[in-house]
C-alpha cells in the first residue's frame, strides 16, 4: 500500500515538475503547444474515464459536449462579449447539453447508451454544420480571443497546468466519495442498487452532469488554445479517439487518460509528419495494448507493481501476516483507482 502510494506520489511530483519546468528549460513554442494539447485532451479523456470507469457508461458523443462549449465561447467572442460572459455562455451551453445527454440516456445502458450518446453527438455535429449564422458553418469560427490575464503564451500554459491538476484532483475526489461508490454499484449491478433503494437514473444523470461539466471546461480551454472551432471538433471520430485514449491509458486509473492522450496526440501530430497513415500506427498501438496490456498502460503498470509488492511482502513475513495477503491473492482490481 505505502509503496504503491509512494510510487504514484513520486510519479505525480515528477510529472508536475517537468510540466512546470518546460518553459524554463527552453522548450520551443511547438513543444509547449503540443503539451498544452495533451493536457486538454487528457482533461477531456479524464471526464470520460470517470463516466466509463466508475459509472460504466461509455459515451460515444463526449467530444461533442466539449465542442458545444467551444462554440458557445467562440460565438460570444465573435459578438465582442467580454471574457466573463464568454465563460458563462460556454458553461451554460455545457450544462444544457450535458443535461440533454443525461436525461435521454439515464434509462439506458450498454449498447443503447452507446447509440443514444452517438446520436446526440451527431445532432451537435449537424447543428455545427447547418446552423451557419451562429456557427459559421463549414468554416467554423476563428480569431477567438482568450481573457487578458492569460493572454501571454506562458501564463496560459501555467493556467492549463493548474486547470488540469485541479480537475484531475476533483474527479479523483468524486470517484472516492460515497457518490463514486454508488456509481460503481450501478456499474456492477443495477438490479441490486434498485433493491437497495437507489434511484438509478438520478445517479446516472448526476454522473453525466459532473463528467459533462469537465468536458465542457476542456472545450473552452481548447478554443482558448487554438483560437478556432470548426464542425470537425464535434465529429464522431473525436469521440472515438477519446475512448481510445481512455482504454490505452487504463480505464479507472487517475493518470491513464493523460498517458493515453499523450500517445494519441503525439502519434497524430509528430508521427503524421513522418508517416502518411498515422491512424494505422495508432491502430497498431491500440491492438498491441489490448493484446498484451489489457488494463491499459497505467493500469497494467499498477498491476505489475501490485504483484511485485505482494511477492515482496509474502515471502519474508511470518505466516500469520502472510496469510492475510496470500490466500485470496487480493489483487488490486484494475478498475479501482490506484495511481
Amino acid at each position, binding site marked *: 500500500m505505502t509503496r504503491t502510494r509512494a510510487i504514484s506520489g513520486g510519479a505525480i511530483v515528477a510529472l508536475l515538475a517537468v510540466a512546470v519546468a518546460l518553459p524554463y528549460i527552453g522548450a520551443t513554442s511547438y513543444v509547449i503547444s503540443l503539451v498544452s494539447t495533451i493536457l486538454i485532451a487528457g482533461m477531456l479523456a479524464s471526464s470520460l474515464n470517470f463516466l466509463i470507469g466508475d459509472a460504466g457508461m461509455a459515451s460515444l458523443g463526449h467530444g461533442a459536449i466539449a465542442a458545444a462549449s467551444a462554440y458557445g465561447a467562440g460565438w460570444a467572442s465573435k459578438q465582442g462579449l467580454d471574457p466573463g460572459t464568454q465563460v458563462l455562455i460556454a458553461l451554460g451551453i455545457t450544462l444544457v447539453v450535458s443535461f440533454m445527454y443525461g436525461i435521454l440516456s439515464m434509462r439506458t445502458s450498454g449498447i443503447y447508451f452507446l447509440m443514444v450518446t452517438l446520436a446526440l453527438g451527431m445532432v451537435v455535429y449537424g447543428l455545427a454544420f447547418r446552423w451557419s449564422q451562429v456557427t459559421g458553418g463549414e468554416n467554423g469560427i476563428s480569431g477567438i480571443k482568450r481573457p487578458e490575464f492569460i493572454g501571454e503564451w506562458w501564463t496560459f500554459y501555467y493556467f492549463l497546468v493548474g486547470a488540469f491538476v485541479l480537475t484531475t484532483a476533483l474527479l479523483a475526489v468524486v470517484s472516492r*466519495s460515497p*457518490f463514486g461508490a454508488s456509481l460503481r*454499484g450501478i456499474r456492477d449491478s443495477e438490479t441490486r442498487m*434498485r*433493491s437497495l*433503494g437507489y434511484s438509478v437514473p438520478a445517479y446516472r444523470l448526476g454522473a453525466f452532469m459532473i463528467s459533462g461539466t469537465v468536458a465542457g471546461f476542456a472545450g473552452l480551454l481548447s478554443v482558448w488554445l487554438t483560437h478556432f472551432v470548426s464542425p470537425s471538433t464535434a465529429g464522431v471520430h473525436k469521440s472515438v479517439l477519446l475512448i481510445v485514449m481512455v482504454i490505452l491509458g487504463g480505464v479507472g486509473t487517475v493518470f491513464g487518460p493523460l498517458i493515453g492522450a499523450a500517445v494519441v496526440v503525439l502519434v497524430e501530430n509528430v508521427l503524421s509528419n513522418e508517416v502518411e497513415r498515422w491512424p494505422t500506427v495508432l491502430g497498431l498501438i491500440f491492438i498491441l495494448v489490448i493484446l498484451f496490456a489489457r488494463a491499459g498502460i497505467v493500469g497494467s503498470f499498477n498491476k505489475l507493481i501490485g504483484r511485485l509488492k505482494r511477492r515482496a511482502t509474502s515471502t519474508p513475513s511470518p505466516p500469520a501476516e502472510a496469510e492475510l495477503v496470500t490466500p485470496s491473492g487480493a*489483487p488490486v482490481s484494475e478498475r479501482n483507482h490506484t495511481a
Partner: protein
Amino acid sequence: MSATVPGPQGSGAGAPALVISGLGKRYGGVQAVDEISLELGPNERIGVIGPNGAGKTTLFKMIAGDVAPTTGTVELFGNDVTRTGTARRARMGVGRTFQVSNLFRDMSVIDNVRVAARGGSSKARIFWWPQMPTDDVSQRAGEALESVGLIDRRDDQVSDLSHGEQRQLEIAMALASEPKLLLLDEPAAGLSAAERTTLRQLIEELPRTLPILLIEHDMTLALGLTDRVMCMENGRHVVTGTPDEVREHETVKEIYLGRRDKK
C-alpha cells in the same frame, strides 16, 4: 383464507408488514404465479416452499417491485404499493437477498456493505468528500459483516470470496440497509451442511421484531426457521399452516417425497 390463520407470535401487534391478495403473474403461456394471498404479521416469519418452477421467486419479485403483477395487489406496512417502483419500496424498508448472488464484483467486501448501508439516502449522494473509514455508515457496515462472520474479509475483493461467503455477504447487505421487512430467496442455495448450520443460527439470532419471508427449497431449513409455511406448486397455493401442519399435508408429502425431485 390464509390471512385468517394467525401465527404463533400472534397478530394484533400493529399493522401487518405485508399483505398480498390475489397476486398473479403470467408469462406468455405460463401462469408463473396464480392468485396467491398471504398476510405477514409484524413479528412473523413465514416460509415459502415448493419445487423448482413453483413461482416462488416470481412472487418475491412482485413483492420487491421488480416484476409488475398481472392480477392482485401488494400492501407494505398498510400502504398499497402495487404500482410503486423497487427503489421506493426498498426505501420503505424492504430488504432482500437474491437467489443468485448479486454483488458488486469489482468492489471490496466492506464497500459492498457500505453502499448497502447508505441505501438510496442522501448520504449516498455526497460527492465532494471521500468515503470515511470511521463514519456511522462504515460502522454499520462493519457490524453487518460481523454478524454474518465475514469481518476478516472486509478488505478483500468480492470476486475472491467463496460461494458460501458470497451468500453470507448477500445477507450482510440486506441487513446493513436496516430493513423493516426481510425477503430471503433461497439463502442456503449451494451451501455445504456446515454452512447451512451457520446460516440457520444467523437467521435464528435475528431480532424477532423483524418480519421475514423466507423462500427455501430445503424443507427442513424452511420449516425449522419459521412460524408458518406456505407451499406452492405450479404457481398455485397448496397449503398454508404451521410447520407441523404443512409437514403432514398429503400434497406436500407427495411433492417432496413422492414422484418428483426429492432435494
